[in-house]
């Protein structure tokens, strides 16, 4: 039997060495090492032998098995390395096939970023009506009727024929600030809220004006809110949004519902303030009007202005999107050309 074992091993090794293809090796592996292969066959016959021989021959069979295994493994490696190190032609430059996946609009992406920043700062998100009462859009915000302050917000009016409302009482809201009164009159401070949404103005549509556009309103009311908290919040938010390198500057301005009023400018996202075609040489863009909430507004919402203070701000979302993507015409945001949608 010893001779049979050695013969089997040698035949196997010879066949392995002669193999010209990987498939042949697999066939040999089954022939010798498979469940019903020659090695197992030899092993099964061992128990017929005299016990004194069993041990020696058993280890001889196992050694042979190991030798055959190694030989096959080695030859397989040879084949593999031959095929991958050889002169095989493979075109890596061939274009990929794109997965069929759509895209979100730039405005959704920028708004998500903005809301993430505010949620980090502890703000809640709210959403409210776009068909608004003059009361919430103007009156509660300290815009008296027939005051020139209203001129800054060219207003459209709904046709109220056949309703109990007087002409001018119902309007498409001109700013998301209309949500200040709605939320504050129903909420006890302290609170921090952001309200994204659509706004409407009586405008001739051009590169920088739309009849409807988006804002993100925000306001916070607490006991010890300071003016520097407002400036710090704006600074933090704009740096998170536009990058730490953005330059920010503040200026005094007037809105009836804040005192003091703040205008915020950021350096042009294309030229960083030097002046270029994108920013029409100005170098700066006004993005985030703000201010400390006027005590008249707090009081109108039944919040004691002696005890509570707050600030409010609005981000021109449509403009922020334009700045972020260096879009020089606000109308692009409403353009559904797929070649544009793929760029966001």
């Amino acid at each position, binding site marked *: 039997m010893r001779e049979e074992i050695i013969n089997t091993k040698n035949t196997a090794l010879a066949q392995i060495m002669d193999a010209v293809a990987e498939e042949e090796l697999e066939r040999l592996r089954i022939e010798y090492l498979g469940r019903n292969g020659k090695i197992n066959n030899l092993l099964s016959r061992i128990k017929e032998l005299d016990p004194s021989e069993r041990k020696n021959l058993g280890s001889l069979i196992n050694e042979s098995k190991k030798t055959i295994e190694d030989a096959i493994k080695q030859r397989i490696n040879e084949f593999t390395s031959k095929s991958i190190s050889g002169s095989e032609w493979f075109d890596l430059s061939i274009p990929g096939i794109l997965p069929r996946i759509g895209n979100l609009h730039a405005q959704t992406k920028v708004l998500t970023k903005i809301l993430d920043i505010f949620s980090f700062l502890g703000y809640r998100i709210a959403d409210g009506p776009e068909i608004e009462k003059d009361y919430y859009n103007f009156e509660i915000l300290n815009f008296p009727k027939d005051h020139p302050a209203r001129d800054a917000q060219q207003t459209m009016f709904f046709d109220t024929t056949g309703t109990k409302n007087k002409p001018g009482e119902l309007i498409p809201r001109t700013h998301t600030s209309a949500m200040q009164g709605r939320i504050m009159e129903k909420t006890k401070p302290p609170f921090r809220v952001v309200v994204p949404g659509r706004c409407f103005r009586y405008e001739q549509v051009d590169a920088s004006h739309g009849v409807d556009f988006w804002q993100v309103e925000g306001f916070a009311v607490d006991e010890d809110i300071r003016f*520097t908290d407002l400036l710090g919040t704006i600074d933090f938010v704009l740096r998170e949004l536009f990058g730490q390198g953005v330059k920010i500057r503040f200026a005094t301005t007037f809105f009836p519902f804040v005192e003091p009023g703040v205008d915020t400018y950021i350096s042009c996202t294309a030229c960083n303030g030097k002046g270029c075609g994108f920013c029409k040489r100005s170098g700066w863009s006004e993005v985030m009007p703000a201010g400390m909430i006027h005590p008249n507004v707090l009081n109108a919402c039944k919040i004691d202005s002696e005890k509570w203070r707050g600030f409010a701000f609005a981000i021109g979302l449509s403009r922020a999107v334009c700045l972020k993507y260096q879009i020089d015409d606000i109308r692009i945001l409403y353009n559904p050309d797929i070649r544009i949608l793929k760029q966001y």
Partner: protein
Amino acid sequence: MKAPILWLEDYVKINTPIKQLMWNLTEIGLTCESYETVDNKPVLDIEVTPNRPDWLSITGIAREIAFLEDSEMALPSSKKLTNLDGSLPIEVSLDPKLASAYAGVTISDITIEPSPLWLQERLKLVGLRPINNIVDITNFVMFELGIPTHAFDYDKFLTKRLKMTLSTGGEDFESVDNISYKLPKDAIIIKDKNRVIDLCGIKGGANTGISQTTKNIFIHVPVYHPVLIRKTSQTLKLSSDASYIYERSPSVFLVDKVLTRVTDLVSQYAGGKPSCLVNYPPKTLKQKREVNIDLDDLNNFLGTEILANELIKMLKRIGFATTISGKKIKCQIPDHRCDINIKEDLYEEIARLYRYNSFSKTLPGGNATQYQIPYSYDREFEILLKNMLSSAGFFEINSSALTSKDTIIKANLNLEIHIRIANPASLEYEYMRTSLLPSLISAVRANTNAQELRLFEFAKIYLGPVDEAKEIYKLSAVSCDLDFRELKGVIDFLLDRLNINDIEIKPVITKRGIWHPTRAGIIEKGDLEIGIFGELHPEVLRNFSIKKDLLAFELDIRSLKKLVSPSIFKPLPKYPPQIEDITLTIRENTQLGKIIKTIKEVEMVNNVYLVDTFGNFVTLRLYYSHPQKTLSDQEVEKIRKQVLKEIEEKFQAAVKS
């Protein structure tokens, strides 16, 4: 407001280069983004906010520049009017409800001639055409001091007793520039006898205007009620430099000063002697105008550590006198300021002079929102839906909420339920949209050359009537490359991810004009309508010139939100299912969805998929399984029999032989 540097320099020395000056002005509230050059001289273009009528004057702007330049301002000096000879008597009956302050003077023996060149130059720089010395002086002083003035030809008065009153409506009036108007009701006017001689605060009358032969004049300096002026100006669609100032409530404390300045200039450049004075001081003149602030409160409000003496110095430089006792500071408001009423107004003043960009920046401490806020919005849900559509190959578009009558009609929608804008900026934006589909169809039209187009929009629609308006979020999509089953697959995928099962689909049938009457269905669960999907009405597609086959859906977000349930982990089955394909012969017009639903309801049938359809044959793949054991062939046979029995009974369908 146009502010020529040359004119500003009459009162203040400017050392800062113009670009820097413009930003400095902007920072303290006088937004100045550009300047123009007139006759080679720079003229600043300043946006004046409606709270600061004092900045509608060259001296008002010069005062701010003096602060910025840290220098003194030289105001024109003028003596009190004396030596009135009384030769030209005048009486004006006034109404404090119409004009809260008023001053006027008659001047005799003036000579009309061109005004001096320096004065003409300044008027030209602000865009005014020089006329003659008297008219030019009144304009010059309005620009210089910010209160309008007007000169009448005294000899043209029919009576020396003038009366200020409100128009009753319908009066004829011819302005100095010879334009005729029919006056509206409640315009402030001045009458002599029964003639209207002044449309107050807007334009003077031709009947008493200054001419080449004018010898004696009456000049007045009123401050009118802002709302009355604004209403008249809006009704007549007529505004002037004067009405612009009056609408913004200029200070009532300056009329005497302004009158003196005009009179001085008239004496100097037109000769003449002041004769009779009309003086109507504001009622509040004698009151002390003060705002008290507390230094600690100020610093707490601003987040600063401003010291008392710093503060006093700062305020003094813009004309506020202060008295201090401990931490309390009394601030006296200067005559030219009528916008300071409460401590916060003064805090802004201080913050502005401290310069906004000098403040440190902090974040609020304190408490985060503790209460569930009203109007709270689940944006996560919106983003979940948008992401699902995007991963199904759809691109998001944004479009206007406003639409045109033309589009509504083209889309077969009901114009009646649309909310209308009474004063649309353009007819393209006249109605609030009641469906997102027209925008999506137009978007397809705009992408004529794109072959594989899948678009969606997530936005509100608006349903009238306007006084009970409903604003409803919808998710709508269109595709020109998916077939019916693929589009339905998108909806199935969406509903599956939201764990919304057991929906029903009903044909649209009813008149929903934009949808195909038979190839579109309403998706429902219980009483709740989830949305509509399918083909659009061929007529609509033709109206929009769409040549592609379009499939669409519009889902209601509120319904989805009501039905969504969270995903709960289910352990994987321990025992493998038995899987088999069955090919059935079905009758015509059998709804496959119903067959599959019926089979699914059979016990131990875990899942059923449609593999293929061919003519009246349909192949289904059935998964049988039991939670506690592997089913034997005999057990499977029993289930299969049950399945076949059910569909035989309900649909007369049988296994293909």
